[in-house]
């Protein structure tokens, strides 16, 4: 790491500490449903088309926003609608219009399958400001991963609609062994479509994906992903970013806009489908801090979340004596299991930990 980056890393570390002291709520995820219209190989094996947890009534989430509005400027809190697949909800526009009327900008995370021109128009009218759209390969690989023959066609149509609009959007690609070699072709496809932002994340080896040879990247491929992103950013035709997880040592600030910082519980809160008050919606271990049916969201935000805002407890196992601790602090919270152990070290996979 050169001197400029070293200084930048330290400044960013101090900068993040100022944010941790204030923990301003800036992103609020709403897991509005657990239902989904596809069956992705990299998603939960129990993410069924009709899940056991009913959709949260819109009014229940709007009461959370009432709590937020009393203590925050709603224009500064970005509501992110996620799932499951949010577009399976018929009342989405109705609820989201109310979100917007309360002063909150909102965005959508979608697989694109139900993103028709009509639906896009009604979402826009409901105040939608951004979209994160999944694209996991060119046609064969995308449809294979998503388990749906029309998925690529619909995602492609959604990209065209979004590229012509004023909505901020990015495409999100989960890299696995099958689509790894296709990355340059996906990049060219996105550039040709006029996509400006591309977010890439790596498959997380757990559960079914762990034993699936089509899924798991080799160490060499894992490193190759960062080389690819670095190169793509240098070329400058599309703004590629690695997802927010993982301290990446020499790749820091080369493959992402910012130096690593897990925002879970610091600027990011979530309301899960069962009412749980969580930090980041990607966290699946039980670090819930309350439940909207028992607690006031902002009381929880202001007075709990200690596991997310303190770090020493994470200094266990291989993190204990790690020389990267200062800037990594035990990786992202979604990589902690229920016992508090870190289950993936990016530096280790890059062969750069020691």
């Amino acid at each position, binding site marked *: 790491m050169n001197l400029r980056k070293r200084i930048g890393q330290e400044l*960013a570390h101090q900068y*993040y500490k100022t944010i941790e002291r204030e923990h301003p709520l800036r992103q609020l995820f709403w897991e509005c449903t657990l239902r989904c219209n596809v069956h992705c190989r*990299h998603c939960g094996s129990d993410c069924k088309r009709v899940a056991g947890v009913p959709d949260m009534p819109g009014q229940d989430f709007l009461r959370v926003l009432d709590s937020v509005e009393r203590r925050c400027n709603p224009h500064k809190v970005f509501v992110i609608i996620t799932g499951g697949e949010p577009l399976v909800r018929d009342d989405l526009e109705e609820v989201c219009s109310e979100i917007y009327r309360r002063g909150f*900008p909102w965005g959508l995370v979608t697989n694109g399958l139900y993103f028709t021109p009509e639906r896009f128009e009604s979402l826009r009218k409901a105040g939608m400001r951004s979209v*994160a759209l999944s694209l996991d390969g060119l046609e064969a690989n995308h449809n294979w991963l998503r388990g749906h023959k029309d998925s690529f066609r619909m995602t492609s149509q959604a990209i065209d609609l979004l590229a012509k609009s004023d909505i901020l959007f990015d495409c999100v690609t989960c890299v696995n062994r099958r689509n790894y070699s296709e990355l340059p072709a996906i990049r060219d496809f996105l550039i040709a479509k006029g996509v400006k932002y591309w977010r890439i994340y790596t498959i997380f080896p757990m559960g079914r994906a762990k034993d699936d040879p089509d899924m798991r990247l080799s160490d060499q491929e894992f490193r190759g992903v960062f080389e690819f992103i670095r190169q793509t950013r240098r070329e400058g035709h599309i703004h590629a970013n690695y997802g927010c*997880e993982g301290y990446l040592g020499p790749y820091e600030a080369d493959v992402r806009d910012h130096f690593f910082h897990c925002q879970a519980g610091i600027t990011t809160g979530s309301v899960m489908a069962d009412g749980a008050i969580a930090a980041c919606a990607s966290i699946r271990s039980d670090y819930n801090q309350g439940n909207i049916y028992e607690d006031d969201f902002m009381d929880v935000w202001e007075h709990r979340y200690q596991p997310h805002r303190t770090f020493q407890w994470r200094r266990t196992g291989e993190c204990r004596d790690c020389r990267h601790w200062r800037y990594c602090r035990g990786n992202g919270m979604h990589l902690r299991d229920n016992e508090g152990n870190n289950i993936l070290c990016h530096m280790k996979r890059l062969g750069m930990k020691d």
Partner: protein
Amino acid sequence: MNKIYRKLLAGCLATLGFAACTTEEPDLYGPMPVEYGPTPEYSEPKEVKQQSRSASTGTIDGQAEAPQEDVQTTDEPA
């Protein structure tokens, strides 16, 4: 004080050619979409009142556990 220090650090980061993160970025609210009319301007909160919370419409009791995902995504906002 914390805010001033943060701005200073963000300034130093920018001088070195690095982006600071998102807390100070402009909001994305933008103009109101069609037909809903203007939204009231935000004013700083006065006294924080406790709101009583009614029971939910049955999404908590007796429901199955939320599905666990095999693979974690980083679905931060666009």
